[in-house]
């Protein structure tokens, strides 16, 4: 059994600079470790002088030091010099940096301290053997990031389960008309990938599925997926659409961002994958009240089965990629903009559908009007606006809502302004921004291009919108021009920010991964590992880790796929010791082993 040399521990945690760590708790813990003779906290001795250290060495007969906390290297020289002067080995000063160890809480800090006192590397003590990795992978969420990761892993010859909650894959990108900054057609990029997913022999697509439970550990996770009933036999349905034609129930279409109506038996959009119909059980008259059932009667292939039940699918996978995406900010929360009260105040997502050639108006920009049943929709007939305004930073960079920048809104607003100019060349377009964030490759050039197209880009956040005799009146401070603007326009587009999905917390709990302050899933390391999560064998891709645009989401999808493939190729993953007690035991063990 190895004896621990008399040790002095110096904690370099400044109270005001670090969240989550508590000087007192850590100091209390360290004092109880056998061998520790003296514990300082930075607050007591902000700048330890060599003569002070020397005094402590002789008083307590110290033989080595541990400097732990944040930037302990700052103090190393003083301690090494003191050690040398006392005739001890100046190298016996151990650094234990919390940030380098990637830890975020008191318990892990204790473990790091314990290992340092025992002179055992933390990473070593944390490792608890390794496990074999199953070659199958689960990808949760089939937006562009999930699709990209799925395809890359499947192309390497490994099986992928792709779970999607809705009736089709494609995610938000499928709703967009164009991508910035190249103005490529979004569907032309995405649909081939979607078709590839549908046809790939190594991909098993589970739509209407949600992760319900997770068991096991890295390398061999057992995942229960709850798959909702589709009520349509996918193998038999030929997608003729007679059922939908006859269905009497009108429901707002989620795919069109609630700007058009669909039926209760529907296909989300013409290029959906799988390209088969499904029934919305919340609105189907038969499933709700056992009345109607007309779709079943008219179906040519008799593929509708109202008795289909939800089922649980259990799969075993070695790695999991989480790519669950985002929801857009609810613009109705900011009452000053009148979203929900004024029909022609739209969110950017609604406008994406409006300008989309495959959208409710076939891409013509029209006012929102009521249909025969009184629902607010976009219809191909009707008037077009003569002036439009875009307002940036809705729900983003706002301490009343979300503190962070959503990163995509500046660029998509410029893109939407361009699309307006393309479709309505005579329309006046105004953009109100706080700061223009055109940070990516080709983005600044795109910004210049939109300015050249004659869009009036004004610096100043619009404060409120009022509706006056059919027009919308916007009040803004034109900061760079030193005046107050009272601008009347026909249509306003609110550039809503991105938010974590409502049940991101639930998924984080199921998978036992961490979330950051704003609810986005926490990456393994904020500077050099964005696609790893806080847990071994679970990767992150796309916006669920933090707001990002399509190129970045795709890149992160690829990165996550490469991490998965790395694990599969190695064939094993290391399994960490999580609890403090386990790490302590292992550290003692290692320390004894070294002595022998």
């Amino acid at each position, binding site marked *: 059994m190895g004896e621990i040399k008399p040790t002095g521990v110096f904690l370099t945690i400044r109270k005001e600079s670090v969240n989550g760590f508590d000087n007192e708790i850590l100091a209390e813990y360290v004092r109880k470790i056998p061998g520790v003779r003296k514990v300082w906290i930075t607050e007591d001795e902000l700048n330890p002088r060599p003569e002070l250290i020397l005094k402590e060495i002789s008083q307590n007969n110290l033989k080595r030091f541990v400097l732990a906390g944040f930037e302990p290297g700052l103090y190393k020289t003083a301690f090494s010099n003191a050690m040398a002067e006392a005739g001890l080995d100046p190298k016996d000063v151990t650094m234990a940096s919390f940030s380098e160890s990637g830890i975020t809480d008191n318990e892990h800090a204790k473990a790091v301290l314990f290992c340092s006192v025992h002179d055992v590397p933390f990473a070593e003590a944390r490792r608890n053997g390794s496990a074999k990795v199953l070659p199958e992978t689960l990808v949760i969420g089939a937006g562009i990031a999930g699709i990209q990761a799925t395809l890359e892993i499947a192309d390497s010859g490994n099986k992928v389960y792709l779970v999607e909650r809705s009736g089709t894959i494609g995610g938000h990108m499928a709703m967009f008309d164009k991508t910035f900054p190249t103005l490529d057609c979004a569907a032309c990029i995405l649909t081939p990938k979607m078709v590839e997913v549908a046809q790939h022999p190594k991909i098993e697509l589970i739509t209407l599925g949600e992760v319900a439970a997770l068991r096991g550990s890295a390398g061999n996770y057992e995942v229960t997926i709850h798959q909702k009933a589709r009520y349509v036999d996918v193998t038999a349905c030929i997608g003729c659409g007679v059922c939908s034609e006859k269905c009497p129930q009108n429901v707002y279409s989620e795919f069109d961002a609630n700007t058009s109506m669909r039926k209760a038996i529907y296909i989300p959009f013409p290029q959906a994958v799988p390209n088969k119909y499904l029934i919305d059980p919340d609105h189907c008259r038969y499933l709700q009240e056992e009345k109607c059932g007309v779709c079943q009667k008219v179906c040519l292939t008799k593929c509708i089965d109202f008795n289909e039940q939800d089922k649980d699918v259990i799969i075993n996978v070695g790695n999991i990629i989480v790519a669950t995406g985002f929801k857009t900010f609810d613009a109705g929360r900011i009452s*000053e903009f009148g979203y929900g009260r004024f029909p022609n105040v739209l969110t950017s997502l609604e406008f994406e559908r409006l300008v989309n050639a495959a959208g409710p108006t076939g891409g013509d920009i029209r006012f929102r009007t009521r249909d025969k049943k009184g629902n607010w929709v976009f219809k191909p007939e009707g008037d077009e606006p003569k002036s439009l305004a875009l307002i940036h*930073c809705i729900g983003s*960079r*706002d*301490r*009343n809502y979300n503190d962070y920048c959503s990163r995509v809104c500046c660029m998509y607003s410029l893109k939407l302004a361009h699309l307006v100019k393309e479709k309505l060349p005579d329309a006046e377009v105004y953009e109100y921004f*706080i*700061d223009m964030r055109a940070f990516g490759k080709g983005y600044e050039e795109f910004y210049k291009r939109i300015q050249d197209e004659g869009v009036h880009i004004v*610096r*100043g*956040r*619009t*404060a*409120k919108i009022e509706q006056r005799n059919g027009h919308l009146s916007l*009040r*803004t*401070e*034109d*900061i760079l021009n*030193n*005046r*107050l*603007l009272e601008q009347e326009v026909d249509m306003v587009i609110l550039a809503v920010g991105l938010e974590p999905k409502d049940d991101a917390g639930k998924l984080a709990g199921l998978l036992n991964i961490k979330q950051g302050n704003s609810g986005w899933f926490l990456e393994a390391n904020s500077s050099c590992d964005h696609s790893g999560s806080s847990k071994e064998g679970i990767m992150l891709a796309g916006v669920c880790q933090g707001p990002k645009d399509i190129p970045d989401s795709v890149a992160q999808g690829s990165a996550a796929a490469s991490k998965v493939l790395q694990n599969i190729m190695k064939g094993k993953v290391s399994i960490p010791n999580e609890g403090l007690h386990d790490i302590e035991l292992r550290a003692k063990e290692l320390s004894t082993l070294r002595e022998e």
Partner: protein
Amino acid sequence: MNYRVDPTFKTDLKKFGLQSWNDCFHCGNCTAMCPLSEDSFMFPRRAIRNMQMGLKQKLVSSIDPWLCYYCGECSDTCPRDANPGEVMMTLRRYLTSIYDWTGLSRKFYTSKAWELGAILLLGGLIVLAFAIFWPSISPELTSDGGVRINSIIPLRWVEYGDWAMAIIVAFLLLSNLFRMYIKIVHGAEAVKVPFFLYFKEAWRLIFHFSTQWSFSKCDGKKYWLWHWLLMSGYTIMFIIIVVFLPWFQTEEIYDPWHPQRLLGYYASFGLLFGLIAVIIGRLRKNKAKFKFTHVSDWLFIIMLLLTVLTGIFVHIFRLAGMPLATYYLYVAHLAILVPMIMIEVPFSKWSHLAYRPFAIYFANLKKAALKLQEKPGINFATT
């Protein structure tokens, strides 16, 4: 015009109640949200910018803080929680101390010891004066059962005291107003104002002093009404006790419908109602403008409330025929009233009764003068 940047300015403003100085990221939401902000007087964002930069000369000569009536909508909707409304409030305190040439205002705003000390000193002097010249108290009642209120001290003495106080306060306030005028109209952002405009625009002074019309545009009619009741009650009472004291403070008790009593009752009601509304608001903190209360705000409210309450009880005890209680309370009433007026009116929060209408007057002078120069689209205030 060149301006000096003063990096220590914001530290100085902290003493006047500034909460945070670097939250604002200049989105302009506050200025656009403000119901009173206009092209020629855009606030509060620009004032915040000047504050952040430490452009002291520019702030000292700006009217904007006085044009803000603090509805708090800017603070409620500010994306950065930068509290623009409170910055404007802080600047008003600061400007009050700048206009004051005696330097006392600054002392009172930045030091509790000075403010409390001055109040206690003045109050103590009043009590002392009564103690030394303690006149004969007649326990007899008047024929109608009231206390002989004027037997504690000859009414003429109180009247002389009133006039002396009024002259001192008026002198201080007018000299400070003159300094305000020089800074705003002839200061860093000077405009040449033709002489006749001073008369042409003078109606605004009276109109805005008596109605606070801008306030009604700012915050809905409810708060305006509260404030107007408070203000009108105060003004009526002030005029009665300073100018018409012999008519008001009579030994004889008139019947309740006499104008003397009606006016007194109206003024007391207005004051009490307005004060209670403000106190409830500040305790509940349900609006942005009530959230942060500087020491000077509370002191003023409390002193005014005590003045009103002692005044009301003097009246009640007098009617009830309780001589001793009346006399003691009368001394207390004066001991609170005198420091309240002497300190709050020229040096502290109450000075806004003069600065606000004059600010509107000066603002309109500048606007009208610029209009005469016929240079549309040019703003004299530049960022």
